[in-house]
């Protein structure tokens, strides 16, 4: 073993660090699949419960599809967010991340990407299942776009708030309470745009909620990027 001490040859670039965090989350989840199976089972149960709670005839189904989907995603999303951040907190791993010579925001973005991937995978399963159970054609490019944009906004804010929630005593219940009132615009715009795409409406009616979604995503990613340091540092 050499007695000389040498320094790392390069400092991790922002992008590399972000992707490292994402890879780490995905690899760990691929092994245990705890988070993913919890989210998936929960989503399917919610869809099922909707079936029994709301006696939907074929006509009504058309109008509530967007709403039912988004309620499902919103609730399942909190499960994923909670679990994803809890892993870091429980074994002190967050400190390990903070000790690395990288910008804190890289940790944030890394987590946003991995959380987003989890959410999108769940959605990718739920949408066909719903389609199958209720005989509604959901394979609509516009709908998928809305789901993507809405999920981005939800996860961007959710990751930031989850980082705070797990540091509080009441951690499990706190995240939905913090998240839902603040993510209302995403739900409203996403449902509106989804309906628009599903009913084949004129693009001019869809344009507005779609641009609101994009605007929300941009604003909150920017804010989270600026503010994340304050949330994790001591």
């Amino acid at each position, binding site marked *: 073993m*050499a007695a000389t001490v040498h320094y790392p040859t390069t*400092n*991790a670039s922002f992008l590399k660090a972000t992707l*490292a965090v994402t890879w*780490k989350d995905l*690899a760990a989840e691929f092994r245990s699949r705890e988070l993913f199976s919890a989210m998936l089972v929960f989503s399917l149960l919610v869809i099922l419960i909707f079936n029994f709670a709301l006696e939907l005839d074929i006509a009504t189904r058309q109008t509530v599809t967007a709403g039912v989907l988004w309620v499902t995603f919103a609730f399942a999303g909190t499960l994923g967010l909670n679990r994803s951040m809890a892993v870091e907190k429980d074994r002190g*791993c967050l400190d390990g991340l903070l*000790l690395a010579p*990288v910008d804190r925001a890289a940790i944030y973005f890394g987590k946003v990407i991995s959380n987003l991937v989890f959410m999108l995978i769940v959605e990718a399963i739920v949408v066909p299942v719903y389609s199958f159970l209720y005989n509604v054609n959901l394979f609509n490019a516009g709908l998928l776009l809305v789901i993507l944009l809405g999920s981005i906004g939800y996860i961007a804010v959710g990751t930031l708030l989850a980082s705070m929630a797990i540091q509080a005593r009441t951690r499990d219940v706190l995240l939905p309470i913090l998240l839902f009132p603040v993510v209302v615009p995403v739900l409203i715009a996403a449902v509106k745009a989804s309906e628009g795409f599903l009913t084949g409406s004129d693009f001019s009616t869809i344009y507005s909620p779609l641009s609101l979604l994009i605007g929300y995503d941009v604003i909150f990613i920017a804010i989270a990027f600026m503010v994340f340091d304050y949330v994790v540092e001591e």
Partner: protein
Amino acid sequence: MITVQKLVKRFGMKTVLRGLDFEVQPGEFVAILGPNGAGKTTFLRILSSLSRPSLGAVSVAGYRLPDQAASVRARLGVVSHLPLLYGDLTAEENLRFFGRMYGISNIDSRITEVLEMIGLASRRRDLVRTFSRGMQQRLAIGRAVFHDPEVMLFDEPYTGLDQDASAMLDDVLRSVAAQGRTVVMTSHDLMRAEELATRFDILSRGMITASATRKGLGRSNLLTFYKKALAS
């Protein structure tokens, strides 16, 4: 290598560190001893850049905290009593992850090197959650040493380890220190500290109240020194 002047740390209105002065030369192995609640962990967290000083000047490896924290972190290896490892990843994957976060270029060979050093080469592809506490602690040291830091901080590394594991940890610590690194370790375990460290500082009620080098102690017992320092 480490210079601390009049360090004050407050949590809200509670003051934990009260104007602490501390200095470590390159290559020294300093053991910080003291009763619970004295502020040892808080102090180490500040040195490791995880916590910000409320007042005072801190510099590690020539860089100021908290302004130049990123430069400090690149030269710092930290082991705490929590393993800071991901249970669902293998030993190799854990090291690879941290290697990437530190921007190490020759990761594969470095992984092999480090696993050899800590005696876990055979457990390379095993999930960390199957490791015993002692093995996790050794891997934690591997992680901390991966980027060849000049300075290492150990916060109560022997917590929860049995005799065998502690003995293995001794060996690893000795080899790590022998590589010319500067080490600061907090510990409850006076016996172990006595064997490893070159200098002993007592932290009591937020300040360093006494300091003695191994040579300075001479024949007298570390325990006696410790008790005397706390009594005053």
